[in-house]
């Protein structure tokens, strides 16, 4: 071993040791913010996101038992979906329930997975779940067939408009007796009149609490990289909100609080925003003046 190599190895070991000790000190001091109200830092988010994608990719190898496009399977999958998945993931035009709003990572809108993931990967995640995300593994509670039914439905969902989804859900046997085929949107928090004009920082924070990032690309919001709805870069200067309503701060608040009142066909669900939260989010959105993506 040359002297130079030995110095290098020793240096490497010393650095490794310093890293381990430094890491241990940070852990002991409780340095990393584990509050679910705040998103991960950008590097941590992307590292975890990438690690998850790789971990699924190398493990998922199940072969579908047949044609996943079969209507019987899709309908059976929808029944399972309504029982076990809708609460966190939502559906076309349907918001998740209140518990999902507090989760970090935010439960994904499944359109992207349904359109682009291979069935084996969807199957793996449903069967195994994902540690520290809130996604349970269903492999113990559901049969293999039931899990494939779910995969079939997740793959069919991107071809359903909100109305088509509601009709399909309403046509399931037993839904006439069930409380409601499509659950009511989460109830807004007790809503006093808004007490102050919208605040940009409060609005940015609120986008995390209302799962905006699961559907929209939002400049400056970590993890907001989904194209379920339109990207919000440039929304400040856009002439129309939701393609239907002239853009103004008042109309933005109106749309955010009750999209279906503005456009009954809209896939944007009512998320139970309070007047104050809607004002804050509108204030934040009006800072996004650059159309991105050129």
């Amino acid at each position, binding site marked *: 071993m040359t002297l130079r190599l030995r110095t290098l190895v020793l240096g490497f070991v010393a650095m490794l040791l310093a890293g381990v000790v430094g890491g241990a000190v940070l852990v002991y001091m409780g340095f990393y913010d584990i509050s679910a109200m705040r998103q991960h830092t950008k590097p941590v988010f992307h590292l975890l996101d990438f690690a998850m994608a790789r971990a699924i990719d190398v493990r998922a190898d199940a072969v579908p038992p047949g044609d996943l496009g079969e209507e019987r399977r899709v309908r059976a999958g929808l029944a399972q979906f309504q029982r076990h998945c809708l609460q966190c993931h939502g559906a076309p035009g349907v918001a998740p329930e209140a518990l999902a709003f507090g989760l970090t990572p935010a439960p994904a809108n499944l359109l992207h997975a349904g359109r*682009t993931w291979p069935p084996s990967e969807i199957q793996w995640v449903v069967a195994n779940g994902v540690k520290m995300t809130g996604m349970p593994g269903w492999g113990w509670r559901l049969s293999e067939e039931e899990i494939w039914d779910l995969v079939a439905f997740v793959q069919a969902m991107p071809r359903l408009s909100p109305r088509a989804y509601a009709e399909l859900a309403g046509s399931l046997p037993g839904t006439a007796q069930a409380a409601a085929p499509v659950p009511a949107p989460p109830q807004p928090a007790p809503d006093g009149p808004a007490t102050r004009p919208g605040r940009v920082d409060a609005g940015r924070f609120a986008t995390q609490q209302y799962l905006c990032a699961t559907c929209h690309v939002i400049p400056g919001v970590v993890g907001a990289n989904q194209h379920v709805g339109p*990207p919000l870069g440039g929304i400040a200067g*856009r002439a129309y909100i939701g*393609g*239907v309503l002239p853009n103004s701060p008042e109309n933005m608040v109106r749309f955010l609080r009750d999209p279906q009142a503005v*456009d009954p066909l809209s896939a944007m669900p009512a998320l139970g925003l309070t007047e104050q939260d809607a004002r804050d989010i509108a204030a934040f959105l009006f800072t996004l003046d650059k*159309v991105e993506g050129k």
Partner: protein
Amino acid sequence: MPLPARRPSLPRPFPVLLLALLAAGCGSPEPHPVHVAGGDAQRGRELIERYGCVACHSIPGLASYGANVGPPLVSLSQRGYLAGVLPNTPEDMVRWLRDPPGVDPRTAMPNLGVSQDEALDIAAYLYSQHR
């Protein structure tokens, strides 16, 4: 004969891992090709210019990017919903392009009298732009 001193090289997986992490940092999902049967993207591009779509929409690959009346038509192959109301399939895209108010009476997008073949071409161009 003593071997010449050599710089120790990094173990092989290292650069790969580093590249992977860098790629992860970029973080945008990979493009997902959407095929429009019977649509010609090049003709679609010309039609988009002729119909003046860029007066209202920012469209990748076309001049006067920055129009902001309706939403930017970026990453359309990844978009979940068209106009916020239709599932994003080539068939529904064509339906929308041909008669927006027929799909959603409240939409601000006008009916421009686009024919079926023209709509197929325009859809092919829009889906071909992955950003």
